[in-house]
């Protein structure tokens, strides 16, 4: 059996004295696209930030490629995993290509310029995210959707073993939502990399994710293939809504229908 890329064992996470995550255990395998779903306040972002290493669990352990996360020097860890936060922000109106270059920063030696390899990866990422034409523009002149794509390109430019993304689809139109999901899926399929994505769109989650983790009140309500997780019972408990099932050419999806 292959070593999981990322493994959380019996995690307990508290913020300001309040336990947000309890007893969460999960594994992310190489080449897996794992979605984390759940209602607002269910602990999705806290779990993701803990998996990134930004929060320390009160109990439990996280390991990356079989090694405890805290044993990695920060600069090595930065080469292996990338984080795309929920509230993507750029405080200065720097250029699109400079933002994407930030993703290569862990690979660029201090006092050196980006190498030819770094430049090639950045160019590829700008092309794949359809940002080539706006690469010299400053980020404050872009639409919200364009900014989200730039920030996603930054996270992907590091070619991480595992990408942890917190609601990266926010602010994107359906075309660019599908484009980003396809790009992430391609990244997973092309190599032994993995993506962990927090998302609210259940139909996209059902379509793109290999497995889903559904959180409720900081604990895992369900984990498994989208079909097994996105059941009426689970969704009504987690979200307090009813759903309608849709099937097209064997591809199953769910549509949120009514509040309970």
């Amino acid at each position, binding site marked *: 059996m292959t070593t999981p890329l990322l493994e959380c064992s019996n995690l307990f996470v508290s913020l300001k004295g309040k336990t947000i995550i309890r007893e969460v255990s999960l594994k992310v395998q190489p080449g897996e696209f794992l979605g984390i779903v759940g209602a607002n306040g269910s602990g999705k972002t806290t779990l993701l930030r803990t998996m990134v290493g930004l929060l320390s669990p009160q109990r439990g352990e996280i390991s990356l490629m079989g090694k405890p996360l805290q044993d990695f020097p920060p600069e*090595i860890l930065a080469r292996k995993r990338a984080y795309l936060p929920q*509230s993507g922000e750029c405080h*200065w109106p720097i250029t699109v290509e400079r933002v994407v270059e*930030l993703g290569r*920063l862990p690979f660029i030696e201090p006092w050196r310029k980006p190498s030819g390899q770094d430049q090639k990866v950045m160019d590829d990422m700008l092309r794949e995210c359809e940002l080539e034409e706006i690469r010299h523009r400053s980020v404050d002149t872009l639409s919200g959707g364009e900014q989200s794509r730039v920030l996603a390109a*930054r996270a992907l430019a590091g070619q991480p073993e595992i990408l942890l993304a917190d609601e990266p689809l926010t602010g994107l139109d359906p075309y660019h939502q599908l484009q980003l999901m396809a790009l992430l899926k391609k990244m997973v399929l092309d190599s032994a990399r993995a993506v962990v994505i927090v998302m609210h769109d259940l139909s996209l989650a059902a379509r793109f994710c290999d497995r889903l983790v559904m959180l409720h009140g900081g604990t895992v309500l369900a984990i498994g293939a989208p079909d097994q997780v996105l059941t009426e019972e689970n969704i009504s408990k987690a979200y307090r809504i009813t759903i309608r099932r849709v099937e097209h050419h064997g591809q199953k999806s769910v549509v949120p229908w009514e509040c309970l």
Partner: protein
Amino acid sequence: MKSWTLYLILGSVLLLSATVSVCIGTVNLTPGQLVQVLLSGDQTPLGVVVWQLRMPRMVLAILVGASLAMSGAALQGYTRNPLADAGLLGISSGAALGAVCMFYTGFSESASRFLASFLNSIGCGQFIDWFGGGAGGENFWVPMGGLAGAFIALLIVILLVGPTTNIPTLILAGVAVSSLAGALTALVLNLSPNPYAGMQIISWLLGSLTDRSWQEVQLCRPFFIAGVVILMMARRGLLALSLGEEVTASLGFSLKKLRWLIVIGCTLLVGSATAVAGSIAFVGIVVPHLLRPFVKSDPARLLMPSALGGACILLWADIGVRLIPAEQELKLGVLTALVGTPFFLALLLKLRRSYT
């Protein structure tokens, strides 16, 4: 604008400004005369004026201007606030208080006397001048007081901030220390033993490069070099901070290390600059603002151009102080404040236009 083009322009302006600064004075020199004087050394009376008065003043203007502007650029990048400057950390107020205390207590005179007798007693009388043990005791001890004040302010800020890496906490601690140092400076003024001491303190607080010597340059230089190197070590972290603290941490930067690089680098630069030249406002805010469009707002690429730009601005302010006819000597800090205010008004109008 390409980096090398910007460096070339700023470097040329700096060279020109430095030349003008040395040529201008009671006796004006042409560039040809200046070269002659420089080559002949300080053997002639004019040589003494150039080598012992104007050159240290010019070098000090470069060091002080570069220190203030580079610290301003670093702090604006770190706090991601375009209105931040070293005053925010309480460093300049601490340095001012330290220097003022030297005036008030008369420590410089007694310390110089004590040191002179001590050095004589151990047979090292030749080193007295190094420590300002002679008539120029103030030239050494007042800046030393300023440096001590800057580092005490830093120590208090460190203690107040504690282990958190939260930036507003750092700013709040800095503002608290700045207010305290300001209040204590006012108290010292209030309690000054005679009007002359009070005037001396006020005059120093207004900022000036008049009558400075190579001694101040020597005092400033190691802190300047260390401060510049430390801030340059923080440049990648400043760029990463553009995307927020969490992304910076995820990119492998230690937020604690980054904070101390910025705080210590700025303390070395601003502490030594204030210690030798007094309080000089606005350079730290204005220069990064003026140069930001030329580096596409990149906080990492802004540091060195700000240092060069700050040096140019302070050289011209110092030239202005000498050229503007006034009965009393116009103080450098007063001129930078007067020139800085219209800049803020222009910024305000621009901001108002963008919101209407």
